[in-house]
């Protein structure tokens, strides 16, 4: 096996992993704070890609879409938390899960009505169309480098937000003990609202970034929801670091198996998850099974 083939495949894996990272971090932040497993996460990812298609059709500007889509879908997430999920707090974790599952149905069907059931083309933005050719190592598409860079930037910003700002302090305290937080006079409902919006915005961003690499269709969210779950189970629920590392790991494992055993590539991530479950049921960076 040549070195260049492995290098290129490794790189593809990291780009794929970057999308997983964005997705699973959104899922993880929502779960860590609200205790809600968002089964509509894949649907938000899909809506993100379609919102991108719409923005491109109207403005023709990818950069505008990149800024607008997370805000737009994040706002949709705010509405969902406020009007659908908030009434369910205190009823146990199964109910929000079931509700978001139903919401996934509605979002997919709404997109089918608005955009049709067929897939949509999504061109790579012209500025990022080329690639970098490294002698002896292979050809690396610029768009994938861009996806990796954006993900790294988002991770850095999230880390700064959580660890270095007052808001981050509130969020972390809320994840640990929401009751104390409200006793201290902080509006916990508002924190939850914003965190849910943040999570769905991240899912939409992942969908938009993935659109030129994977196809855009109303069903694209289903497979990705399962992939995000696998990543979260491997990394450990509620752990940002775990989500980031497991996302990259899964991306690399999937694309390396695609190199050697193409028919096994979709199955490999599940094998990895099974292995992790057998050895560490709480995930690589999970903090026990208290939830």
């Amino acid at each position, binding site marked *: 096996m040549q070195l260049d083939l492995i290098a290129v495949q490794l790189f593809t894996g990291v780009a794929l992993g970057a999308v997983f990272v964005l997705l699973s971090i959104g899922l993880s932040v929502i779960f860590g704070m609200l*205790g809600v*497993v968002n089964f509509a996460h894949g649907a938000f990812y899909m809506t993100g890609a379609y919102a991108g298609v719409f923005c491109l059709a109207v403005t023709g500007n990818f950069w505008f879409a990149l800024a607008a889509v997370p805000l737009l879908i994040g706002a949709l997430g705010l509405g969902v938390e406020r009007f659908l999920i908030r009434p369910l707090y205190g009823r146990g974790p199964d109910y929000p899960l079931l509700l978001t599952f139903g919401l996934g149905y509605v979002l997919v069907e709404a997109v089918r009505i608005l955009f049709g059931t067929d897939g949509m083309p999504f061109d790579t933005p012209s500025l990022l169309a080329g690639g970098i050719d490294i002698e002896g190592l292979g050809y690396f598409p610029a768009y994938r480098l861009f996806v990796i860079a954006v993900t790294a930037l988002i991770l850095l910003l999230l880390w700064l937000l959580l660890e270095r700002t007052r808001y981050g302090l509130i969020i972390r305290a809320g994840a640990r003990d929401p009751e104390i937080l409200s006793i201290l006079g902080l509006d916990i409902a508002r924190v939850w609202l914003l965190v849910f919006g943040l999570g769905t915005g991240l899912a939409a961003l992942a969908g938009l970034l993935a659109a030129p690499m994977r196809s855009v269709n109303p069903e694209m969210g*289903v497979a990705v929801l399962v992939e995000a779950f696998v990543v979260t189970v491997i990394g450990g629920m509620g752990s940002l670091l775990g989500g980031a590392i497991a996302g990259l790991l899964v991306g690399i494992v999937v694309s390396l198996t695609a190199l050697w055993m193409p028919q096994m590539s979709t199955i490999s991530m599940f094998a990895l998850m099974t292995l992790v479950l057998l050895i560490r049921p709480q995930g690589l960076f999970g903090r026990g099974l208290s939830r």
Partner: protein
Amino acid sequence: MSAPAAAPLPADQPALLLRWRLPLLAAVLATLPWIAPSQALAVNILIYGLYATGFNLLFGYTGLLSFGHAAFLGAGAYGTGIALARLGIGWFGAIAIGVAASGVLAVLIGALSIRSRGIYFSMVTLALAQLVYYIAFQADDWTGGENGLRGLTVSRLRVGPFALDFLNPVVKYYVIFGFVVAALWALSRVLNAPFGAAIEAIRENEGRALACGFDVRRMKLVAFALSGLVCGLAGALDALHLSIVPIDTLYYQTSGLAVMMALLGGAGTFLGPFIGAAIFLLIEDTFSLWTSHWQLFVGAIFILAVLFLPRGVWGSLIAWHQGRRA
């Protein structure tokens, strides 16, 4: 937020209903071909009602929300289909193989997934079921892959010296009815046995059940396996009914179907899943007549049910009855 995974709490059921639940359900199902708008709908209510009931054993009674039950419906269907179409085994043996395959799969998936708890459990079951889907998708020599498994038409059922005409819709309905009622009878016995009380104890408070000396892990696994067997039978009957096994049987949406049906009817009640299946299939049947986007309505109705009718139709009726008597 360390509350145990809260399956909907069913109200204590009236004793009379508890005793007569099986004859009541059997009587309604026996007349279904004449009440339901179409014969096809009646058979589907039978099969999917059984599927949702099997799921409900785990969700409603044991308190474990699985999102992977499509794997068991699919294992039953593919097991039966492969036995019929590829191995040339008779219809009864084929059903047995399908149910057994589903039981084995349920023990495997169960053993892995009960290592995780609460919300984790839902995610792990979903992921493992998706793995089964991908495997069936790849193994197209056996399963027919994307096109589904074909060529398993059964036109005559040999029972000893007799032969039943399985192409006759009435005969077909009552053959399937016989299997469903037998499974429901067995399930009703299990739920009335001490085991039934024990799994409900696990649902109510796992820690306490453990402290009482129950082997919680083993009981969960047994409940998981039983649930898989029942869903496997539903799958086997579906394969006989449809004469094909579509690959979608194994897909995520099919797992969600059981969840929706059980919740709409009333999780943790014996009759609820059948009522939920009937409601769901009626909605599908009605709305799909005038729009291809009927899933929009199903999703919206499901959201409304989660928000305003968490006990489901049947569960709410029981609760209302209790409230009036108190």
